[in-house]
């Protein structure tokens, strides 16, 4: 059969060679796909196996958190922040609370600051472990997944004994924390800090020198530093390009300037560099935890402001004044001064910022969440176009998006 007779072929195709020339194919990936780590939908234009264009579609997990925040008091919104970056809820909790405290002009006591730092670093290790396990699983290295989940179990036990919840922590409150650390908790963290580096070395040995892993990750999904900055990419994805931007160093909060830790950076901006950066970040987090464990100061965990912080339960049950305070804070909340602030912390995924506009009421007039995953996802097109479709899987994993945060 002549090429022109084939179905779908135009008659102006000159020779038999052109019959083999396929058209571009549009492939829909997601929103339910094992490698998209949530409900991310990509519409990929392919020429053979080469990616010609990627169009991400997000919003499948949208719950309207920014709108919900406008209708409740500042403390009532804390449980919603658990459900943003659900791989590191403690970190998101702290990020939100810090923004409200900046609006209120509150500085929490040293003990609460150190505990919050430990929360953030535990969350970072937990989030990076999940990224490592699932990212390696996507590229066929299933063993790593089981090792990382064993360690995450230990972390979840630590988080559970501190907050009472494994996933939905809702631990900090405006002005401090909802409860002090329980007996024996320091010992739990201490054991983890002692054991975890060995496990990390094993994971490192499983992947870093592995030829298959190197071939799948090196020179894949490259983004230049200039492009990453223009797109606003932050966190490990930006540091993989060689830019040492870490909010813990540039705008220290919670006393991060008193801890000794390094900000690891890559040089090439490929999947492998982002992998190395996150691996080293876990080591640095362990180092921070170790320092924090040695320096947990004594003292209160809440500020002394009866208009903001709930009174102790035993006084509520016995004293009239405290009972009224508790009633007022729970039912009416507290009022924040009029103004607008933006506050950012270094979450596991990057710069997590909250813009709060207050009109002096008990709830924000507008709460905007700068979700690092949302902004990192924009870079997918720069990274994936020109590569292979199988590399796209490695790229999504290396960007480490969490859709609860992207869609909010």
């Amino acid at each position, binding site marked *: 059969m002549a090429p022109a007779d084939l179905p779908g072929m135009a008659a102006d195709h000159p020779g038999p060679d052109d019959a083999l020339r396929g058209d571009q194919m549009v492939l829909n990936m997601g929103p339910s796909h094992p490698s998209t780590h949530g409900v991310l939908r990509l519409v990929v234009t392919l020429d053979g196996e080469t990616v010609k264009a990627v169009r991400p579609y997000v919003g499948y997990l949208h719950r309207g958190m920014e*709108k919900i925040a406008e209708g409740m008091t500042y403390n009532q919104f804390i449980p919603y922040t658990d459900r943003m970056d659900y791989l590191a809820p403690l970190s998101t909790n702290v990020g939100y609370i810090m923004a409200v405290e900046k609006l209120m002009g509150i500085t*929490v006591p040293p003990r609460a600051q150190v505990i919050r730092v430990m929360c953030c670093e535990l969350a970072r290790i937990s989030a990076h472990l999940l990224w490592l396990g699932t990212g390696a699983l996507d590229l066929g290295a299933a063993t790593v997944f089981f090792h990382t989940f064993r360690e995450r179990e230990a972390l979840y036990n630590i988080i559970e004994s501190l907050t009472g919840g494994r996933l939905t922590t809702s631990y900090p409150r405006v002005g401090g924390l909802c409860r002090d650390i329980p007996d024996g908790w320091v010992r739990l963290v201490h054991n983890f800090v002692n054991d975890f580096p060995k496990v990390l070395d094993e994971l490192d040995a499983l992947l870093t020198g592995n030829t298959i892993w190197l071939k799948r990750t090196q020179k894949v999904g490259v983004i230049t530093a200039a492009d990453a*900055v223009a797109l606003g990419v932050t966190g490990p994805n930006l540091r993989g390009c060689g830019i040492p931007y870490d909010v813990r160093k540039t705008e220290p*909060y919670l006393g991060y300037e008193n801890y000794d830790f390094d900000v690891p950076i890559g040089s090439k901006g490929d999947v492998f560099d982002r992998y190395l950066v996150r691996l080293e970040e876990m080591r640095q987090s362990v180092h921070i935890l170790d320092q924090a464990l040695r320096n947990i100061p004594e003292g209160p965990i809440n500020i002394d402001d009866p208009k903001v912080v709930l009174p102790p339960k035993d006084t509520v049950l016995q004293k009239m004044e405290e009972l009224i305070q508790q009633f007022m804070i729970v039912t009416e909340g507290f009022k924040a001064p009029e103004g607008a602030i933006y506050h950012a912390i270094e979450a596991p995924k990057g710069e997590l910022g909250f813009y709060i506009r207050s009109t002096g009421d008990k709830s924000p007039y*507008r709460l*905007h969440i700068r979700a690092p995953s949302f902004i990192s*996802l924009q870079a997918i097109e720069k990274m994936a176009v020109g590569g292979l479709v199988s590399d796209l899987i490695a790229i999504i994993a290396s960007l480490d998006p969490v859709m609860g945060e992207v869609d909010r």
Partner: protein
Amino acid sequence: MAAGPYIEPNPPREVIAKVRERHPGAVVAVEEFRGEITLVLDRTRLVEVAQALRDDQDLPFSMLTACAGLHFLEGKYEHEVVYVLYSLAKNRRINLKVRLEPGEGVQSVTSVWAGADWLEREQYDLVGVRFEGHPDLRRIIMPEDYPDHPLRKDFDVEGGPVSLDPGGRPASPGWRDMEHA
């Protein structure tokens, strides 16, 4: 460990004078709160000032960190758009703000920072701000056929019939619809 929880109040005040000098009439007002400077700009001069701030040799605001739109029911202005800029080289932040009267749009800053693309799409989608000159102003979070902008202050969170398009579907099927079922 007695450091405060928020950024050292070290706002780049020199930027205010510089912008005023280089772009006469562009700065409508300056706000300062909790160590943050917000330049309120004439909406027609936003891109010009943003471009100059990005390309400034002394204090290059190389990164657009966040973009937040606000909707108002009362007052002269219907929308405000706030841009949070960050200078990687000098570690400073500054906010830009434009105010829009009903029917007015704002020039898109996608030509200045490529990352403004999704940020502006999100604010268009949720708050209803029109970004003029945006290359691809589609909805991003809500479904494509969604009739409303849910972060507007007149949005009925209980799912009432606030459809801007009479032929469209209701904005959110809430408990009122359930009652009729």
